[in-house]
């Protein structure tokens, strides 16, 4: 699904990504861990076509990133730190607008269904500006998946969510996974990473420091390896 080789991103003469090599298969759910400033968000932005890599090759679904932007954009659902929602609009209006941009049929039906799925049916027509952080995040997730993308890029999706919202989000990710969706999720929440991901990639200083498969939701293994790579032996 995703092939990244020798990906380098420079900004202001500073190397943010220094040669990332990564292959992710279809249907995998991958957690990306790493300290602040490691370049995790930058990596997702490159994949989401928001910023251009300085050098290196990125292929998504066999399509080269540079020359197939339009096709690749259709394949992706991207959820960055910010919600990408219009504040004066209700969840319904936001989702219908983005659904239409992606050219999906019956956008309105789909929007209502998604709002229900994230448990905010009651607020369907309230403007988003009155929402709490967690509610906004849930609508933002709905926005990212409205066109049922085969590839999900999530940047710290669990931040600011309460327990109920976390389990709603996990269910959404898992049900997308059941449909064969590939997910790349940046997170600082080891527990969620261990719970729903089947592979962990640790990024440090713009490089892949570790990359291993998860077995049996082993939370201990994750924290152990993370500490070894990030905090441990220098």
């Amino acid at each position, binding site marked *: 699904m995703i092939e990244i080789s020798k990906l380098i991103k420079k900004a202001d003469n500073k190397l943010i990504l220094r040669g990332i090599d990564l292959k992710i298969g279809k249907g995998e759910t991958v957690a990306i861990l790493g300290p602040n400033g490691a370049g995790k968000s930058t990596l997702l*932005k490159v994949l*989401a*076509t*928001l*910023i*251009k890599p300085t050098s290196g090759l990125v292929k998504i679904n066999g399509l080269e990133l540079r020359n197939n932007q*339009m*096709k690749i*954009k*259709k394949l*992706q659902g*991207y959820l*960055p730190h*910010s*919600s*990408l*929602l*219009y*504040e*004066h*609009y209700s969840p319904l*209006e936001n989702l219908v*607008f*983005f659904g*239409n*941009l*992606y*050219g999906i049929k019956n956008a309105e039906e789909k929007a209502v269904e998604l709002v229900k799925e994230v448990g905010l049916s009651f607020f369907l027509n309230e403007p988003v500006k009155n929402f709490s952080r967690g509610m906004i995040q849930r609508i933002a997730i709905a*926005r990212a998946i409205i066109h049922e993308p085969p590839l999900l890029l999530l940047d710290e999706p669990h931040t600011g969510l309460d327990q109920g919202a976390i389990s709603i989000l996990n269910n959404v990710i898992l049900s997308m996974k059941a449909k064969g969706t590939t997910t790349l999720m940046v997170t600082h929440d080891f527990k969620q990473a261990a719970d729903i991901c089947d592979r962990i990639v640790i990024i440090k200083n713009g490089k892949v420091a570790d990359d291993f498969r998860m077995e049996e939701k082993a939370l201990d293994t994750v924290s152990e390896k993370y500490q070894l790579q990030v905090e441990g032996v220098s």
Partner: protein
Amino acid sequence: MIRSALLIAKKDLYSELKTKQVLATMIIFAGLVILVFSFAFDPANNTTKAVIPGVIWVIIVFSGILGLNRSFISEQRNDTMQGLMIAPMDASSIFLGKFLANFSMMLVVELVSLPFLFLLFDFQMYGGFGYLILVLMIGSFGFISIGTFLAALAANSKSSEMLLPLLLFPVTSPILIGAVQATKIILTNIEKLSSAMAWIQLISAYDVIFFVLCFILIENVLEV
């Protein structure tokens, strides 16, 4: 591409319909300009007719800038600009959509304020009404299309509110000079229509060239 552009324009206009912030500011500004000019130049006096073409374009330029400034700044909250950029459409669709929204708002302001201006100054049109509309349309078209492009460019800067007029005036001055001249001829000296037409042709050519340029170059401006 047209479809995405229309969606964006509709989104902007609908959002404006809800908040009414930008349009209200533009119209209040236009009203103030008209009032101040009516204090400065006695509407009863015949010589003041000469200032009307100037007043018209002062209204268009300054209230236009108020609207243009908001056009891309409004996409910064919650990074909604990123939402547009990751959607499957060309950057030129975003330009076209924004242009359509800005142009419609400009037309609404003209539609509200210019009749008010003519009423207050008790101005009689002697024919040439169609030509006046034509000049207003092509002048606003050029001004707003270049303005939309430069607003996108300026939005990335911290002092965009100041940057936009600084960039906009030099680039649009041929349009503005031509439009003021043509308006003046049409309103006060309709016999010289042929020279007004020459100005109109100049503006039209300028419009087409710059619209196409903006359309092509917008991709390089909208990068994060």
